[in-house]
């Protein structure tokens, strides 16, 4: 009794790749996010040790019972530093994605909703922004704004405006052309009502999903800029900066570069997985 749209023609045969990441894959992803969020909110609940002042005589100790992830050149506990660093990473990503989402949504909405010449001009400008490598754009902004964690987050946010604008515009166009939106106008809906009741609810999931994926990218960018030394100054326990500092002891103390890197990767993988699953659920 189903409609013929559901009819599988003879020709859609192989579906060998079922969902690439199985549903169970989302459990660890959410776990990682919850743990890191908890670290950011109350780091002292998870570690009694300081992130900035080290224990004398405990320099460069390998992972062991006292220090599960070892200590650095000043005798600071690496796990404590990673836990305290979660706050910097998450705050930076939030600011960056916030800036990108806000400005990008506005530009994309206007371009998509107004259309015509405005749309053409705005999207050409977006193309230009996309033609400049993101990192170079961030660097240009940092030259102007100066060094520091907020400046870095802002710079990363601004570079993602173009990407967000483009996504939101295409989302608006897709939803705007949907039959059900036309039908809503057809049954007497005003522009504002249709926007509020149909366009927004139907775009919000994919926009949020994209914001999640984009925040993974932002975390990578921020850690890269931190690594290059443009972010928070030492002794801030920012993960990228920690890797940069650990480089000096690469030959002897492998843990200093390995663990902060794994922390970055875990968070990025987790947000990506969650974002993609939202996109899939929406499709």
């Amino acid at each position, binding site marked *: 009794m189903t409609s013929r749209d559901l009819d599988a023609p003879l020709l859609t045969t*192989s579906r060998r790749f079922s969902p690439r990441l199985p549903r169970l894959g989302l459990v660890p992803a959410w776990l990682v996010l919850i743990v890191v969020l908890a670290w950011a909110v109350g780091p002292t609940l998870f570690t009694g040790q300081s992130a900035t002042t080290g224990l004398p005589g405990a320099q460069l100790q390998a992972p062991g019972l006292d220090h599960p992830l070892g200590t650095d050149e000043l005798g600071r506990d690496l796990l404590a530093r990673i836990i305290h660093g979660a706050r910097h990473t998450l705050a930076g990503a939030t600011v960056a994605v916030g800036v990108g989402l806000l400005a990008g949504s506005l530009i994309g909405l206007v371009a998509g909703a107004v259309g015509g010449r405005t749309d053409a001009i705005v999207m050409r400008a977006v193309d230009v922004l996309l033609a400049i490598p993101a990192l170079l754009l961030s660097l240009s902004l940092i030259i102007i704004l100066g060094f520091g964690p907020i400046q870095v987050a802002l710079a990363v946010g601004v570079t993602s405006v173009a990407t967000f604008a483009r996504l939101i515009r295409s989302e608006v166009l897709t939803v705007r052309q949907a039959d059900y939106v036309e039908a809503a106008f057809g049954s007497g809906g005003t522009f504002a009502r249709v926007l509020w009741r149909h366009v927004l609810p139907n775009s919000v999931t994919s926009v949020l999903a994209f914001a999640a994926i984009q925040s993974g990218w932002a975390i990578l960018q921020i850690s890269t800029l931190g690594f290059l030394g443009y972010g928070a100054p030492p002794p801030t326990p920012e993960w990228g900066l920690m890797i940069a500092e650990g480089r000096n002891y690469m030959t002897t103390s492998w843990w200093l570069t390995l663990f902060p890197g794994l922390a970055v990767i875990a968070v990025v993988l987790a947000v990506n997985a969650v974002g993609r699953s939202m996109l899939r659920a929406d499709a």
Partner: protein
Amino acid sequence: MTLSRPTPQPPESGLEIRDLSMSYVTLGQARPVLHGLSLSVKPGEVLALVGESGSGKTTTAQAILGLLPANARIDGGSVHLGQQSLLGLSDRAWMQLRGRRIGLIPQDPGSSLNPVRTVGAQLAEVFVVHGLETRWSVRERVLDALAEVGLPDPARHHDQYPHELSGGMRQRVLIAMALALRPELVIADEPTSALDATVQRHVLDMIDRLRAERGTAVLLVTHDLAMAGDRADRIAVLRNGRLEEQGCVTAVLAHPVSAYTRRLLSDIPSLAPARSPAILRERRRDAAVTVENLVQRFATRGRGTIQALDGVSFEVARGTTHAIVGESGSGKTTAMRAIVGLQRPASGRILVGGEEVTGLRGEDLRQFRRRVQLVYQNPFASLDPRQTVRAIVEEPLLNFDPVPRAERERAAAQVLERVALPDEVWDRRPVALSGGQRQRVAIARALVLKPEVLVLDEAVSALDVTVQAQILRLLDELQRDLGLTYLFVSHDLSVVRAIADSVSVLHRGRVVDDGPAHRVFAAPRSEHTRALIAAIPGGQPRSARTLEGATS
């Protein structure tokens, strides 16, 4: 009942399926799709395998080609082509069989050719892969094959890419490909469902001619019992993986054994009686919709304009159904969109109940929408996936009358009952509904505003025949009870004959024929209308068709 059956011997030639059972396995769960299916196709014979979606007809075809999805499991039975068993063959054995002994004519010619390779190269592959020709010697054979399926200029088409050919021409190329090596068996999977009616007929004639000349066995997979009746020697009706009945065409159509087949037959619009012209005379004759000299052009990038509508006029009497009929590109959709006020025409007048529509803007346009409501072709796309049925039907009321909630709910409930939607689905979202139920929701949403005119844009084309018939019955009831005027836009003349009082036939933006439905069908005025009517399946008995096919 106790007699032991003799062990069946594989046939000398043709296709023989015995007791085939299959299931799909997902996450360890087996879902049966075929239950002991038996059928056979002899050389030179056309067997139509008829079924609605989900009946298992597609799975059967895939099994014969050895192209089942990875999660399909064969639970028992046998499939033979001549002496050869088709179950459990190696990849190598399959490769020798496909193309050479079994050909496939696919459903959608639009996506069935590789867009980045020339037609000739793709056709040549059949010969080369089976080692009959080399890449360098094949050209002559390809040109012959293209000529054989009636392509006007084989040498030119040889070097063209698929997108440069029309749908009908592409389907001819695919037929040439399927028949190139003169296979014993051809599987035609809904071979014309993506084509316009007039093209459909040519393509089916062609398949039939080649079958007759070469004695090929044809398995025609289709949902369309009327087409099966025209084209097949025998019919097998499949439902939920079980064979409902199998027999020669005349027997199945004249004396169906199973209740299901009887229902299918009675639901086919082209076999149903045409609407009685008497109804028309009883009705009041004032015009609900008047369209005068409608013109619409679209600018294409760079090169001038396309004339989508070129002086279209018609009038629809109140309380009647007027059908706008045409193939793709005829302008019927453009006309429809202008009438509901979604697109402003370049010139011309549209009057609905005496009010001019073309100049309306803003609030006037919004108020006008109460009086003309549109039901879309695709009930999957026209309902917001996030709203419940109730919310969808109540929304138009919210837009116009700020009535109290209880009253709104009552009005919505009334309409939902009117379209016969059971109340257990009222709080569901569209995904949880069947196609027919969704279309009922769409109709309810349109009716809740109590409009004068209902515009139905291919409103039943996406539905299975049985559901189609139910919706058409519902529309008929509603019209009688509520005095609605319908504007029925369709490409399907058989449906139009069942529902319309009057008809306008559009072709390339012009009205080529119009008038009362019975007159247009009985005495068409234009060549195009004649071609459209001739293409209605279920119109010709088989014997007449064979003669005609051989001469055309």
